[in-house]
């Protein structure tokens, strides 16, 4: 679309009326910086970037987009590494980062209502002041809470509730404003996700901005308990680690636990401060399954908190369950000697309830992050782990990192396998891409595992039969002109 034509100017003027001139840009320089991210997704340039400040502006922008059949790609902070907010050519990027008000922290009902631009650093700072905490992801502190929660996070406290979403306010493409759960009723707050009617909040999770623009989210918050502890338990097999995490979750001993493999927990020891060369522990180049290493195959972080009396009892049970699954609690000396930096980071993340600065992100300096993420039943996951590592090993890739955790008290398990590949090695990157696609098919067929997120592969949804039919019908109903994020190729 030529910028000089009348059509462009009409849209520009309409967007300025909707969101305020200072919040709209069609400057070439601005557009370029919203055309790509750090992934290999090919760049596509939008025609406009709009930063609305309130729900009414969002509504009006969507009405303009609908009127002119212009695609809209929604982003909150845009902090991602897999191309999820690379826009559609010639459309509008709707950046919600400046809708960043924390509207309510309801201490009585233990939920917070936030706008989509609120970041984890902002929310955790406010919650701590009030003696509360929220689910924390392994993402940078500048990532937004709403963006994260709508993508079905794998953060702390996910063992019990998969995500912390209670309700949303969402603007549909035609401008209709919808509230879900208890807040759908007049005069009612967001305290309950489920009302007397179908739960619609879930419709907007993992829909990647294709069904509506979320302008408010209500999330669960949790009081900071009297006593808190992060224990680290060592295991020499993934099977033992999985069984242990199931038992500590189901026994309500752990608020949260995560299984980390050797390459990932030793990755915290990489010295990024050196100016010229990274100092990487040698173990990261070994086979992560090797038994001759003095380091455990897995470490499991176990977050426990509660009254001191509970904690004393829980620690005893933890020790019992560790032993029963052939593990042992890592002592202070073990931690100091082997994983001091990892322990420090886990302490901030899980016991101090905020994201340590740059701890997660700087590892991306090792190369292009390439991840394969599935969810499966616990027993299946044990087999998946073995074979998946072998697939990567066959490509001579290092490091081979993964972390895994139970969801919903261990009914399902999450598994994120990843490495960092030299971005200049296009051949290897392509090979990994193909391998991962094959692995998704393999894991589903052999072990009933599902992909965790949409990977821009339209075949995924096509496999779901009646589910796809219903979802497409809903999409057609709410977004007949397909203006919302068509570039993500979900529909």
């Amino acid at each position: 679309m030529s910028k000089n034509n009348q059509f462009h100017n009409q849209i520009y003027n309409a967007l300025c009326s909707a969101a305020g001139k200072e919040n709209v840009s069609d400057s070439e320089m601005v557009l370029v910086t919203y055309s790509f991210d750090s992934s290999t997704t090919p760049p596509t340039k939008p025609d406009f970037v709009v930063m609305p400040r309130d729900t009414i502006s969002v509504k009006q922008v969507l009405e303009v987009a609908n009127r002119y059949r212009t695609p809209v790609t929604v982003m909150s902070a845009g902090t991602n590494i897999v191309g999820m907010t690379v826009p559609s050519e010639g459309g509008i990027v709707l950046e919600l980062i400046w809708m960043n008000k924390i509207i309510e922290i309801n201490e009585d009902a233990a939920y917070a209502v936030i706008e989509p631009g609120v970041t984890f650093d902002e929310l955790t700072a406010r919650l701590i002041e009030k003696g509360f905490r929220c689910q924390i992801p392994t993402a940078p502190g500048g990532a937004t809470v709403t963006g994260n929660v709508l993508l079905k996070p794998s953060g702390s406290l996910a063992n019990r509730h998969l995500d912390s979403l209670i309700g949303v306010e969402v603007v549909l493409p035609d401008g209709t404003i919808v509230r879900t759960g208890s807040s759908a009723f007049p005069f009612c707050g967001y305290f309950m996700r489920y009302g007397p009617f179908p739960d619609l909040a879930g419709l907007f999770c993992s829909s990647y901005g294709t069904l509506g623009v979320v302008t408010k989210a209500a999330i669960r918050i949790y009081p900071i308990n009297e006593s808190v502890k992060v224990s680290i338990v060592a295991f020499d097999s993934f099977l033992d680690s999985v069984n242990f995490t199931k038992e500590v979750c189901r026994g309500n001993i752990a608020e949260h636990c995560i299984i980390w493999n050797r390459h990932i927990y030793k990755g915290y020891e990489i010295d990024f401060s050196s100016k010229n060369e990274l100092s990487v522990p040698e173990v990261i180049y070994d086979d992560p399954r090797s038994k001759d290493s003095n380091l455990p195959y897995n470490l499991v972080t176990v977050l426990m908190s509660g009254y001191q009396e509970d904690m004393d009892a829980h620690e005893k049970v933890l020790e019992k369950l560790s032993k029963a699954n052939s593990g042992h609690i890592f002592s202070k000396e073990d931690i100091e000697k082997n994983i001091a930096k990892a322990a420090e980071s886990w302490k901030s993340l899980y016991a101090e309830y905020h994201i340590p600065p740059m701890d997660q992100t700087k590892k991306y300096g090792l190369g292009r992050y390439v991840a394969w993420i599935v969810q499966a039943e616990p027993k299946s996951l044990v087999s998946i782990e073995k074979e998946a590592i072998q697939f990567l090993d066959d490509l001579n890739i290092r490091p081979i990192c993964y972390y895994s955790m139970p969801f919903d008290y261990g009914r399902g398990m999450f598994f994120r396998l990843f490495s960092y590949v030299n971005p200049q090695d296009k051949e290897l990157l392509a090979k990994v891409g193909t391998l991962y696609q094959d692995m998704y098919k393999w894991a589903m067929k052999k072990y009933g595992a599902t992909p965790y997120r949409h990977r821009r592969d339209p075949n995924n949804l096509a496999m779901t039969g009646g589910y796809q039919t219903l979802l497409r019908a809903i999409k057609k109903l709410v977004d007949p002109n397909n203006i919302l994020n068509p570039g993500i190729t979900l529909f």
Partner: protein
Amino acid sequence: MELDINLKELERQFSLCIRCKQCTYGSWPKNFPMCPIYDQYKFFTYSGGGLIYLARGILLGLIEKDRYDEVLKVASKCTSCNYCGQTCKLVKVGPPHQNVTDLIRLLKINLVNSGVYLSEEHKQVIDRVKETKHPFIFSSEEEALKTLKSKVPNKGKILIFSGCLTSYKTSENLKAAIEVLNKAGIDYHMMNNEWCCGAPLLDLGNVDGIAELAEHNLETIKVMGVGKVVFLCPHCQETFQNVYPQVSEKKLDFELIFITKYLRELIDQNVLKPSKSLPYRISYHDPCYLGRYLGDYESARGIFDKIPKISLVEMERNRKESYCCGGGGGAKFLDYDNSMVICQERSKDFKKTGAEVLVTSCPLCKSQFRDLNQSINKKIVIKDTVEVLSESLD
């Protein structure tokens, strides 16, 4: 920063930014806005990460050559405050390991090397520094400077490097430095033919002229045979320290020290004894180049500690998280209005403290606040740290 790196060599680093925006805000839990241009323009483009994305946009072929001036226009709003350079640990991991601020400086250098200028004035300032060895157009200031310099003892092993801004725009700082050093009975020199250090050229993206300036200044210092150079401007010291070794083969075989650090040492040695009470409240503005570039946050505060009855009230954003005055990185030359908006934002921090005097240690910061005074009703009283110390000496 390594000066001779082309954009292609920086591709790996440019591709590392994941848009986490930690380059724009301060440490948890306060999360203060820190990037002066992101704070103002709000679009990601105007941030450390955004400028990296623009550079990557050039490499990806998304920006045509005839639009490079637009890239330079955005980059020129950056004040090189070095907050992003100090904070982002991710981008620095990739070779050749430049920090975010350096990447922005290198973007400007590469654009100017390819013949892109922002305006006629941009070119004029560069030409003026190369021709006259100073960035300003002078008239009567030269005479005042001569009068001041007549009080310099011109002996001993110490040299005071005044810098163009101190000499010609904030000469009261130089006057105070001369008074203090003379009261302390220190022997020192000043150059009769001090040339610009070259910092403005670096800021304006032109580095090829710095070598000549460095050669002259270093040769003069060598001939004078001094062992210590005391700087009155942190921009000059940063250029000597980080740029001269790259553009000149002459060794910096002398100690480089900033005036506040040197005076603090003299106080500790009882050579200087601030004894007059100064019963007023001050707030200290940390200059970006003294703090985030040279790592000195405490020497000025150490001086205030020794002055009877003076009361230091800190601004919310201080030390490593001090907010820029808007003047650095050539922004004062290239986008004056933008630099004033940033200065106004910083002045709000000062006003919140309730202090009566804003003190700083950089002539550029001082000139920024002084310029701001021309457009505000309630004027800010601005002093240099050395002026405050001078008042306290008998």
